[in-house]
């Protein structure tokens, strides 16, 4: 049996094939490690390089492995084929098992899995643990466009997204209708924009330029046209100019749609009188000015801030002005329907302050 195996299985052809495949596999490893990915697709943020390195690692190992598997398939199919002159009833080498070999090819992939897990967890931590102290931007998906909110800019910016070079960005994304997605290929980052949910990604742009934002989650007829661009601007004054221009442009339109879901609202100087008017216009469809039990859609709000039997709000937080403001700002996904966020209600920070002042004045 042993000679037979030598002659049939591990003859010169096998070793030549193995040598050729090893060279090809080494070549493919070299190919992936030297492939200039950033020429085809720039690496625009700090972690993009590492993500590409992960790709190189997987592609190199994967293609080397594939070269061997495919190569051996072809080689075996040719080398061991039944030839014309063969005995028609000839059979192959009758081996069933080889414990050492099987252990080997269980352990090796398992080790690869461990290695890959370590590498990907490490990179993934770097992606999720990007600094949170920089610029906070909010991106909102609509059918079929994106808008953005910046701190100190009222309303939504319908222009392209602008970020200064080197400043960490915290991007909160959400959607106003169906699920969209926010993908910047050059940043190797993507997150779904799920309605009713705020998802956060963080990145630090390190390469100036203009990059596509693409929606990858099907969102309707014109899904394919849902694109925008993000400008990474090296020239700080230029960024500031763009920023101020939007501050000016949105100065008046501001309170129509306000910043939501991030940052706390300044409550000082709320005007109860104005709040009452806003309440009539925006809240009275669902809330009565009566006791808690006087329910329209939501509960009665007469003594929402001063009712000892209801010390906490629907979200479980204590009934304090700041927490009421938070609900007004972020909305609340309730069950009789949704308490709309400030964005959906089209009220601004000032309105929230007024409303809180008004509610606080009721006793």
């Amino acid at each position: 049996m042993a000679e037979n195996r030598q002659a049939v299985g591990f003859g010169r052809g096998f070793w030549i094939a193995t040598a050729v495949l090893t060279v090809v596999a080494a070549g493919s490893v070299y190919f992936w490690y030297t492939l200039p990915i950033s020429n085809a697709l720039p690496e625009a943020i700090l972690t993009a390089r590492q993500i590409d390195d992960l790709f190189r690692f997987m592609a190199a190992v994967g293609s080397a492995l594939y070269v061997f598997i495919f190569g051996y398939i072809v080689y075996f199919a040719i080398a061991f084929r039944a030839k014309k002159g063969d005995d028609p009833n000839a059979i192959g080498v009758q081996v069933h098992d080889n414990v050492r070999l099987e252990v080997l090819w269980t352990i090796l992939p398992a080790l690869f899995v461990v290695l890959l897990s370590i590498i990907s967890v490490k990179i993934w931590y770097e992606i999720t643990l990007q600094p949170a102290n920089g610029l906070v931007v909010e991106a909102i998906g609509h059918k079929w466009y994106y808008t953005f909110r910046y701190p100190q800019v009222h309303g939504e910016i319908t222009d392209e997204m602008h970020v200064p070079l080197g400043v960490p960005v915290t991007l909160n994304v959400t959607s106003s209708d169906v699920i969209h997605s926010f993908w910047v290929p050059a940043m190797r980052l993507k997150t779904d924009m799920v309605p009713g949910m705020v998802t956060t990604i963080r990145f630090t742009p390190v390469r100036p330029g203009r990059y596509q934002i693409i929606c990858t989650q099907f969102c309707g007829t014109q899904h394919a046209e849902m694109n925008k661009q993000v400008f990474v601007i090296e020239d700080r004054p230029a960024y500031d100019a763009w920023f101020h221009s939007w501050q000016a442009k949105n100065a008046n339109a501001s309170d129509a749609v306000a910043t939501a879901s991030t940052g706390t609202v300044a409550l000082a100087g709320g005007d109860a009188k104005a709040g009452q008017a806003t309440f009539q216009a925006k809240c009275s469809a669902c809330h009565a000015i009566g006791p808690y039990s006087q329910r329209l859609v939501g509960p009665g709000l007469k003594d929402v801030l001063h009712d000892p039997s209801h010390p906490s709000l629907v979200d479980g937080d204590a009934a304090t002005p700041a927490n009421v403001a938070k609900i007004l700002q972020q909305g609340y996904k309730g069950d009789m329907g949704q308490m709309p966020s400030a964005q959906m209600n089209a009220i601004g920070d000032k309105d929230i302050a007024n409303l809180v002042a008004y509610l606080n004045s009721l006793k």
Partner: protein
Amino acid sequence: MPHGAVADPDEGQVDQLYAETRQLRLQGFLLFLVSDVVLFSSFIFAYLYLRNTLPAWPPPGINRLDVGFAAFNSVVLFGSGVTMHYALESWKHGKFARYANFLIATIVLGAAFLAGQGYEYTNLYMREHVSWSGSGAFGASFFTLTGMHGFHVFVGVCYLTVLLLQSCAGVYTKEKYFGLTAGTLYWHFVDVIWVVLFSIFYLI
């Protein structure tokens, strides 16, 4: 054992064959119940998931479900599980009259449970204004799950009635009564699902 013993069925090993086909049907029926359990589990997962994503449960404006009546109604259903168990036991021991009494008791208790649930639904809808489609995830998960369970109870009541009629008509014998076993399995399954539903809706 695989069916070597039936290689030559012409010899008429009827009881052997009965044992074999009974085993087939038993396994098939149990697997059917397993897939039904998965169906319920999926909806239970949906309920717990939705409940978990909301900041407060029950949502504002909806009172907690009345556990008192539910406990009463649950005991009715659990009691029917016990009577069903003894119905099958009686059949196995050849006490057919006792069997019929227990089975009728089971059917009555099952129907009583359905009536109780109807009462609870009416109460929720009329007094608490909780409805299937108008009360958010609460109404959706509560009515879908309990409704599905109620439908299973209803099917069970019908199934047991058929079994009662069949056994009166002499379909089953003291040795061959797989239909009754299946009915008992189904009824226990319905009970046990309710243990879970009762816990997750009324107790937590």
